[in-house]
């Protein structure tokens, strides 16, 4: 096990790598995964919740999806305590922008500001980087619907379909194969569920392990962030045929 260039985030190894940042990405590889797909009429986010114990109180609201502003939401993979800090700053940033300019913050600008924060922790003062990857989805008047992915190094990029968390590479390649241009929101949901069910470690996809959120435009032109209810998810799973009801009865 190497030690010399590990202990500080701010020091390059002779091969030109930042180990702490790479370890942070490793940490995310074990987290519950999330998939985002850009559709023509919206953005779809699907996340896998890791159910650690049945005694654990499941929160009434979402665990992996967070609304940042009326027109912006994100899905998280990684260390939740780190994520909470970043989500908080993101929300404050979005409101500061609105306070200053009296209009909603452009999506990329928010992603960029958050990634600046992340980057700072890979360069300055003996701290560790944030162990979080995000999928940002949102709508703004300049570029319409957008989907961004960010990692602990502070890199971000725009995607048509992206996956973070456990087995993200497998998911990514499946998305690459099955993604088509001009995908509707409903088809995007189906695709996301299909990919998630195949890349997840657990055998069957059930509504209590799943979160689904969508961003789309209402007929009035307002942006809507909508989280799917557990009942709605169960129906969706049956309809999409991802969840075979004929599976062997659980012991």
């Amino acid at each position, binding site marked *: 096990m190497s030690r010399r260039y590990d202990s500080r985030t701010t020091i390059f190894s002779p091969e030109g790598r930042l180990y702490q940042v790479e370890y942070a990405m490793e940490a995310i590889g074990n987290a519950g995964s999330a998939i985002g797909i850009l559709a023509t009429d919206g953005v779809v986010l699907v996340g896998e919740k890791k159910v650690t114990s049945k005694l654990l109180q499941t929160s009434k*609201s979402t665990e992996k999806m967070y*609304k*940042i*502003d009326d027109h912006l939401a994100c899905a998280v993979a990684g260390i939740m305590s780190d994520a909470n800090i970043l989500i908080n700053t993101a*929300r*404050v940033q979005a*409101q*500061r922008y*609105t*306070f200053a300019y*009296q209009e909603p913050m452009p999506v990329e600008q928010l992603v960029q500001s958050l990634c600046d924060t992340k980057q700072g922790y890979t360069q300055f003062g003996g701290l560790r980087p944030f162990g979080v990857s995000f999928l940002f989805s949102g709508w703004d008047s300049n570029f319409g619907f957008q989907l961004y992915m960010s990692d602990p190094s502070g890199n971000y990029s725009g995607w048509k379909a992206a996956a973070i968390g456990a087995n993200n590479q497998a998911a990514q390649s499946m998305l690459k194969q099955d993604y088509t241009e001009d995908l509707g929101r409903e088809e995007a949901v189906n695709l996301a569920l299909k990919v998630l069910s195949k890349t997840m470690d657990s055998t069957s996809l059930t509504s209590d392990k799943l979160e689904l959120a969508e961003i789309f435009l209402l007929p009035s032109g307002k942006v809507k962030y909508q989280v799917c209810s557990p009942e709605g998810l169960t129906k969706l799973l049956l309809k999409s045929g991802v969840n075979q009801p004929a599976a062997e009865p659980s012991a």
Partner: protein
Amino acid sequence: MSIFEYNGSALVAMVGKNCFAIASDRRLGVQLQTVATDFRRIYRIHDKVYIGLSGLATDAQTLYQRLVFRHKLYQLREERDMKPETFASLVSSILYEKRFGPYFCQPVIAGLGDDDQPFICTMDCLGAKELAKDFVVSGSASESLYGACESMYKPDMEPEELFENISQALLASVDRDCLSGWGGHVFLVTPSEVQERTLKGRMD
């Protein structure tokens, strides 16, 4: 002349039975010169909480923007709207933050609580809350509003009667104040719906 009367304003909120109304005049002036005749001083915070800001219009707008900022963050963190009482405390604390360089505003806050109980309150520019069970007033026409509301208010009014009374009180009062007038805006809030009405009065 006081900075509170620079733009001129009239604000009033009244409670009825499981409802409330909040009303303002429509004039924005610079001392005796009228600048706008469709000015808004009442802002919606969410469906059941409204705030009217009398006093210096520029401070009122900035204060409102700060309140939106804080309320939005509250909504995102708590995943619910603020109760009127909570919102009043927020306004109060934001005003007191500027104790030695205050916003020149006197807010009127009105809202419906969880069990549809109406809540109204006003405060001075430093955030000292004044709660009332019947009506609250503020602005350059506040003195005449006190008199008008005192004689027209009745407990447990139904929405339509409440609208009539608050409108009459407002129109009667602004006619006795040089700095406010040009009709009015009335928000009538019941548990099921919100009605916004524009009043025509003496348009001069």
